[in-house]
């Protein structure tokens, strides 16, 4: 008895009860599609977040002031700096700190250092049109490279502009659209808090990332913003770009050493600044998303399992209902392997058809973005879901099929 023959019998058996076969297939379809889609959704979310992090800049460390350590009455009681004497106040980040970090000898892994002062929610006016810029950044030209900000039209400002504290400005796409509309912003004057700035460039559009519009930004030379807006106080943060992806950790160690020394922090003591390592952040987020994806996958796997139980149920019903037929087949000389083969093939065809249809549905479904996230289909999830669905068919179909095949012909024939 050939395999082809067995397949023919199995298909005929399935065709005899089309609705039932269809519903069983549907159960597996939903399970497989759910596994693939949810994993794709998790992967999409993960990539989207990674992109957002990368947008912060490549190989960068963000140093910002922290009040957790060193402050008066801080909790770091064991630091013992100067015995029980009065605590030094937590130091803010200064331009001198930033300059110290550029020391090639002490910080060979550092490529560039950009001190940053940020003014939030500053009103900019152009010929009567007003727009509140959510982020006005005062910094050095190296900031553009460190944070992957590219000027699309016009030019960057340069070190001379910083030294001369020129009132020049590079604006984000949103700011340009809000203030100038269709007009070319380059060369026009924008008034910020009564101080006129000349727009020299427009940044390439980044797109919004969640809550924040990354294009609602204006970048000016550091002294210009300090003179006109924030005053010459402490820095908001220092962006340090490492020389390469593999040197970010080394750069972090070097920055830590320099700042510890400058701020007088003993080794192991709590620092009055913190360093956000973009690579480390990315790693943390990836692992978090990984857990999230695994959770989604587990939920989907349950629906796949339920589909499998559906197959078992249907095969049990089918076998019970067709016990008499099995008896007839055995009476005219069907070997056990043929009976077993027929029912196993029926179960496998059901689960395979459901699985393949599920893959198609998932592939179609993954084209649609959900909540702004474009799902990314993971090939291994397709293989896994298909494999599991066929496995389920063989495993759960095997039990009823084996039971049917083992019957003595007369037992099966007497079954009503």
């Amino acid at each position: 008895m050939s395999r082809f023959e067995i397949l023919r019998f199995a298909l005929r058996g399935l065709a005899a009860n089309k609705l039932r076969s269809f519903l069983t297939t549907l159960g597996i379809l939903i399970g497989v599609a759910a596994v693939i889609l949810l994993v794709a959704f998790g992967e999409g979310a993960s990539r989207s977040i990674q992109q957002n992090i990368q947008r912060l800049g490549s190989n960068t460390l963000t140093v910002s002031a922290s009040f957790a350590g060193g402050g008066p009455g801080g909790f770091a009681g064991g630091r013992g700096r100067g015995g029980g004497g009065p605590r030094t106040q937590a130091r803010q980040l200064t331009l001198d700190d930033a300059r110290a970090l550029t020391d090639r000898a002490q910080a060979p892994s550092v490529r560039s250092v950009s001190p940053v002062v940020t003014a939030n929610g500053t009103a900019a006016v152009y010929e009567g049109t007003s727009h509140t810029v959510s982020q006005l950044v005062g910094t050095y030209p190296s900031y553009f490279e460190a944070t992957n900000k590219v000027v699309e039209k016009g030019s960057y400002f340069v070190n001379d502009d910083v030294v001369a504290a020129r009132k020049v400005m590079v604006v984000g796409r949103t700011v340009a659209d809000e203030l100038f509309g269709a007009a070319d912003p380059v060369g026009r004057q924008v008034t910020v808090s009564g101080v006129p700035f000349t727009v020299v460039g427009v940044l390439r559009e980044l797109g919004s990332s969640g809550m924040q519009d990354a294009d609602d930004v204006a970048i000016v030379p550091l002294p210009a913003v300090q003179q006109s807006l924030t005053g010459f106080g402490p820095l908001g943060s220092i962006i340090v770009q490492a020389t390469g992806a593999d040197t970010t950790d080394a750069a972090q160690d070097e920055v830590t050493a320099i700042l510890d020394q400058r701020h007088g922090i003993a080794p192991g003591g709590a620092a009055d600044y913190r360093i956000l390592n973009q690579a480390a952040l990315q790693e943390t987020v990836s692992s978090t998303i990984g857990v999230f994806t695994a959770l989604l996958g587990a939920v989907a796997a349950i629906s796949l399992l339920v589909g499998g139980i559906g197959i078992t149920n249907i095969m049990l019903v089918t076998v019970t209902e067709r016990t008499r037929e099995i008896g007839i087949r055995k009476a005219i000389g069907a070997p056990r392997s043929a009976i077993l083969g027929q029912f196993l093939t029926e179960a496998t065809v059901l689960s395979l058809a459901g699985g393949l249809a599920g893959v198609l549905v998932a592939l179609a479904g993954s084209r649609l973005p959900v909540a702004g996230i474009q799902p990314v289909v993971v090939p291994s999830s397709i293989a896994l879901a298909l494999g599991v669905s066929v496995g389920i068919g063989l495993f759960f179909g095997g039990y009823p099929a084996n039971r049917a095949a083992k019957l003595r012909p007369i037992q099966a024939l007497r079954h009503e």
Partner: protein
Amino acid sequence: MSVPVLSVRDLSKVYGEGDARVHALRGVSLTVERGDYVAIMGASGSGKSTLMNILGCLDVPSSGRYLIEGTDVGSLDERRLAVLRNRKIGFVFQSFNLIPRMSALANVELPMAYGGVGAAERRARALAALERVGLADRVRHEPNELSGGQQQRVAVARALVTAPSLLLADEPTGNLDTASTRDVLEIFDELNVSGRTIVIITHEDDVAEHAKRVVRLVDGRIVDDRRQAPAEGAPPRARTPEVPA
């Protein structure tokens, strides 16, 4: 003398356990020679169906030996038993037992499919068998589109298509009207004329009259074994073949 087609020795069959034990067969011994036509008769509960199921290898005896053409059935494993049922035995049931939603042709082809006969040869032999039982014009019909007599003739075609050494029929006319009964018995007569060994179970004397030998069972024992015609030659009621009605 050649090996008998069928030979049973001291066959017994017990159903149930303890107080509920029922002795369906109490030591039956029977030998059927090639070309014979045996009717097994008995009231219901006499054990004739049990005997038939054992002869057809559908059931196993509690004790005793059963040889088909010299092969001890009790020593065969499941796989070889299936081959034996397929090649050596054709079984005709009282309730036809065709597989629903399969055409007459597919039903007749089925034993050959399990026997590993090629598709083309299978089709030719199935068509020949259906023609032999006078259903050449009904090959595409499914069982529920056929009358009882036609269904039983399909079942007979299915039983003889593998050219088995032994044709077993368990009350083949029990569910048929007089005309269909006559048709089916005529087919059996013809088959026996052409040398097929037939064992038939019945409780109707009319049917038993077609056989060359009548065995009577009472309470699981053979009480009477009467020969009506010699094992060689035509069965007593066989007629010269006519144009099928």
